[in-house]
C-alpha cells in the first residue's frame, strides 16, 4: 500500500527554548485509520496545524511522496474540533457545495456530491437547515460530510468526540468506520479510537513516545499512565 502522508523529523517551537513538537515521524497508508493520542497540551492540535502548513515547522511532510504544497490541500479533508469554525452558511447544503463550486465544479454536480455526503453522514433530512440549528453531534457529522464531499485522499480529524454524548460518539464512529479514505484522528478519547484506528501513535511532551497496533498500545496501562492518558 502507498503512503498517503509521511511525516519526518517534524519539529516546531513557538520560542526556540521550548519546542512544542520534536522529531515527529510517522506515516499514514492508503485506506488506513491512524490515531494520534495525547493528553491535553501534548501538542496534538499543533501537530495537525503543522501538517497542514498553517504553522511553519522544520522537517518534512510528504503527500503521496511529494512535498506537501498548498495545491494538495484540496485533496485533504479537515474536520476541526469545533464545527462552528467550518459551517457558516444559511443552509447545510450550501456549506458543503460552496468549496466545490468555488473550486470550479458545476452547481449541479456539487449539489449531487453534497447530497451523497450528507446521506452518508445520516443527515439527508437536514440539508436545508442551518448548521447552528443542529445538535453538536449532527454538526460534527455535517463537518465530516463537508470534508468528504470533495472526495479527499486523506481525512484529518481534530478531537472529533470533544463534548459529544455517548450516542453521538457512537453515530460518529459508525460514519467513520464506513469510510475507505485514509484517516488520521487526533484525540484523547481512547475508547473511541479502540474500534476505529488500526495503529496508534502516543504523543507526550511533544514527542512520539510509542507506536503500534491499537490493541497493543491500549493494553499497555503503564504507557498510558506515563502519557497522562488514564
Amino acid at each position, binding site marked *: 500500500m502507498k503512503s498517503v502522508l509521511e511525516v519526518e523529523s517534524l519539529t516546531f517551537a513557538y520560542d526556540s527554548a521550548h519546542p512544542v513538537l520534536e522529531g515527529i515521524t510517522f506515516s499514514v497508508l492508503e485506506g488506513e485509520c491512524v490515531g494520534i493520542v495525547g493528553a491535553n497540551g501534548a501538542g496534538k492540535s499543533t501537530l495537525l496545524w503543522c501538517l497542514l502548513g498553517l504553522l511553519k515547522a522544520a522537517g518534512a511532510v510528504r503527500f503521496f511522496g511529494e512535498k506537501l504544497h498548498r495545491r494538495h490541500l484540496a485533496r*485533504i479533508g479537515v474536520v*476541526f474540533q469545533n464545527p462552528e469554525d467550518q459551517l*457558516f452558511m444559511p443552509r447545510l447544503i450550501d456549506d458543503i457545495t*460552496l*468549496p466545490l463550486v*468555488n473550486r*470550479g465544479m458545476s452547481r449541479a454536480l456539487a449539489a449531487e456530491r453534497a447530497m451523497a455526503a450528507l446521506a452518508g453522514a445520516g443527515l439527508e433530512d437536514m440539508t436545508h437547515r442551518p448548521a447552528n440549528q443542529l445538535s453538536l453531534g449532527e454538526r460534527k457529522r455535517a463537518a465530516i460530510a463537508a470534508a468528504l464531499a470533495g472526495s479527499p485522499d486523506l481525512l484529518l480529524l481534530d478531537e472529533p468526540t470533544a463534548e459529544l454524548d455517548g450516542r453521538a460518539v457512537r453515530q460518529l464512529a459508525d460514519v467513520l468506520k464506513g469510510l475507505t479514505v485514509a484517516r488520521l484522528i487526533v484525540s484523547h478519547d481512547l475508547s473511541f479510537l479502540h474500534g476505529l484506528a488500526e495503529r496508534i501513535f502516543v504523543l507526550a511532551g511533544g514527542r512520539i513516545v510509542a507506536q503500534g497496533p491499537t490493541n497493543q498500545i491500549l493494553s499497555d496501562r503503564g504507557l498510558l499512565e506515563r502519557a497522562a492518558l488514564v
Partner: protein
Amino acid sequence: MKVLRIVGAVAMLAAVAGIAGLHSLRGLALGLLAGLTCYLALARSMARALRAALPVLVFALSLTAVQIIFRMPVTNLAVKTVASFFFITSAFRIYPWANLLAGVSPLSPLFTLTCYLLFVRHFSLIFTSEAVRLLQARSLCITKPYGRGSFRSLVAALVALFERSLVRAERFYAAQSLRGLAE
C-alpha cells in the same frame, strides 16, 4: 417570482440612494414613513421588527443628542440613517442576501461580497455567544453588580473576550482557508 423579488429589492436599494440625496425635511419625513411602512409590512412579527430597529434608533438619537449637547449644527444624518436601515432591511427581506451566493458565479465580485458578509455575520454570532458565556461566568463570581471587584472582573472578562475572539477568528480563518475559500 425571482425576477419580481430582485426588482423589489433593487427598488428598495434605489430608495436608499434617493434618501441619501434628499435635503428637504418634508421629503425626508415622507421617506422615513415609506421606509417604516415597508419595514413593518415585510416583518414577520411587529415586536421583533421594532426590537431589531432599536440599536439603530439608539444610535440615531445619540448622534442627534451629541450634536445638540456640543452645540454643533443638527444635521439630518440621523433621519437618513434610520430610513436607510428600513429600506435596506426591507430589500434583503424581499430578496435574502445570503441567497445571492447560490445565484452568482464564484468569479463575480458579488460572490466575494456575499461570502464576506456571511463571514461577518457568522463571526458576530460567535462573538455574541462568547460574550454571553463570559458575562454569565462573571455573574457567578461577583457578589454585587457594582463596586470595585465587580469592575475588575468586568475588565478581566473583556480582556478574556478579546483573547478568545482572536483565537476563534484564527481558527475560523484557518478552516475556511483549508476549504479553499481563500483561493
